[in-house]
């Protein structure tokens, strides 16, 4: 009887993310991954039936990890400004602590698995976010606007700051380090823009 080893599985997952980040989806194979993880190909095939299976499972798991982190301490009934503040803190923490996950998602976003991975993340995430936004509009805390406009104002500024941070530079190569001050300053402007 072959058994699963959670530790090994964790190592394999970490190595797979590293390889996808460094070499892209086309660049990595089951054989290369087995070698990098220090497990035999046979062991790898116990966990996953092939490369596609691995990519899909990895994407679903990372997606779940991301949405769980984002929803920590959050509930859709919070006042809008408070809820968004928690969202920003959660998202900033996750993406700053998992810079590789970001590149990995970028790769997966362009893969054939996109829809399946998306479906698994969407599960309750979209529902909770939707409820939060709807309630804020009803309470007059948020201007009505298309969801794309909302997202672009509410979250894209944060992701851009994180991108600057990960690259270590902002415009024209100016050195940049993310800080709570910078985040709060940006969030205050975002809240101002979203207010009716």
């Amino acid at each position, binding site marked *: *009887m072959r*058994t699963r080893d959670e530790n090994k599985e964790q190592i394999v997952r970490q190595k797979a993310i590293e390889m996808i980040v460094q070499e892209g989806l086309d660049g990595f*194979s*089951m*054989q290369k991954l087995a070698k990098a993880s220090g497990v035999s190909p046979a062991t790898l*095939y116990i966990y996953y039936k*092939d490369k596609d299976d691995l990519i899909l499972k990895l994407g679903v798991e990372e997606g779940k990890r991301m949405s769980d982190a984002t929803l920590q301490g959050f509930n859709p009934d919070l006042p809008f400004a408070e809820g968004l503040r928690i969202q920003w803190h959660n998202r900033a923490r996750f993406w700053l602590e998992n810079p590789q996950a970001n590149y990995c998602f970028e790769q997966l976003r362009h893969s054939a698995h996109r829809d399946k991975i998306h479906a698994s993340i969407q599960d309750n995430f979209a529902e909770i976010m939707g409820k939060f936004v709807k309630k804020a509009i009803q309470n007059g805390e948020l201007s009505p606007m298309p969801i794309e406009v909302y997202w672009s104002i509410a979250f894209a500024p944060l992701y851009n700051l994180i991108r600057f941070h990960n690259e270590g530079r902002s415009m024209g190569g100016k050195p940049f380090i993310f800080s709570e001050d910078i985040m709060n300053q940006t969030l205050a402007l975002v809240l101002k823009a979203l207010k009716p």
Partner: protein
Amino acid sequence: MNTQSTIYNILIFKTNIKTEEDKHKIAPLLDALLSIRRWTVDCEDCDCVLRIESDNLTEDEIIKLIQQGGFTCEVLND
């Protein structure tokens, strides 16, 4: 994450089932065995790994079956 620590028996083989066509040739033999829950061949892999989820089949039984189908098959060792 799968929290199951043990799942039914998984058997892993190195084969020369290289193409979709090869897979079609071998499919009737494997599909006919009710004790196989699921089988897959990774044709992309250099070992053309055959993976079998089964409750009670032995490695020897699978090897014999695949060889009867005209392909090579050996246990892929750890």
